[in-house]
């Protein structure tokens, strides 16, 4: 498993745990109300579980498992791959911070732009890897 995939999969596990803990707090709050502010955790719970856990795990596993190039570097250039991980996680953090603190800065817009940049990098890295090396009969 390449290091990029190892970073992404480990990050996704951390987000899974965080997202589940936030979900558990909200579930307990449904039974025994803890604090009115607990519901503000909902958008963070959704962002972390969808982008942090499911999307990050899928991108990391795709980078590892999709067919490789026959020539080196077999999974494409390293720097765009590093930027893909960095941008996705920066994007998630910006969106989460935007939900947590009141600010005039449009952090959620910046977060979504980072996530978009990460997805574009993922597509550009993998487009030519979606091939078959079996010859047609």
């Amino acid at each position, binding site marked *: 498993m390449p290091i990029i995939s*190892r970073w992404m999969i480990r990050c996704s*596990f951390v987000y*899974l*745990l965080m997202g589940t803990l936030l*979900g558990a707090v909200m*579930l*307990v709050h449904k039974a*025994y109300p803890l604090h009115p502010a607990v519901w503000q955790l909902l958008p963070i719970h959704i962002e972390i*579980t969808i982008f942090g856990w499911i999307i990050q795990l899928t991108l990391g596993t795709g980078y590892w498992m999709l067919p490789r190039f026959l020539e080196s570097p077999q999974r494409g250039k390293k720097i765009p791959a590093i930027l893909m991980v960095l941008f996705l996680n920066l994007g998630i953090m910006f969106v989460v911070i935007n939900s947590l603190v009141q600010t005039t800065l449009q952090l959620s817009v910046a977060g979504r732009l980072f996530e978009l940049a990460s997805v574009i990098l993922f597509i550009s890295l993998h487009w030519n890897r979606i091939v078959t090396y079996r010859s047609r009969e």
Partner: protein
Amino acid sequence: MPLISRTFIKAGMIFFALSLITSLLIEVNISALPGLIPLFWHMLMVGWITQIIFGVSIWMFPGRNRDEGFKAQLWGWLTFIFLNTGLILRVISEPMSGVAATGIWKILLVLSAILQVLAVSTYIIEMWPRIMSKKQQREKRKRQRNRKKKEERGSK
């Protein structure tokens, strides 16, 4: 495919169907039970998507213990039991706690939250050491082979 993965995927398929039945109930508005929308989303995202990710990753990620049985696949089976018990408890207790004011449904809802956190924890315990490079994988296999040889020599 190991038994644990097959069990995860089949349970996931059941939740997939249940989630769509729930969404149908919401659409036609025939259920008197409250709180069906969060149940639909959690059956879909936890019961189906997360459950097949768990099942397939336990099977496909490197460093799998090929022995079958509860003891050999301890963390995997605990994950399965905690996740499904937690989700079933939620499916029952969440609408019921909105209908009946008895404390038992609230306790079950809290228990469901705890079980789902436990499921994620046991899954991470199982999978974290298995996120490894090819080099680490080779070294692990080498260590296992050496240990087996030592055990065989010891038994002789």
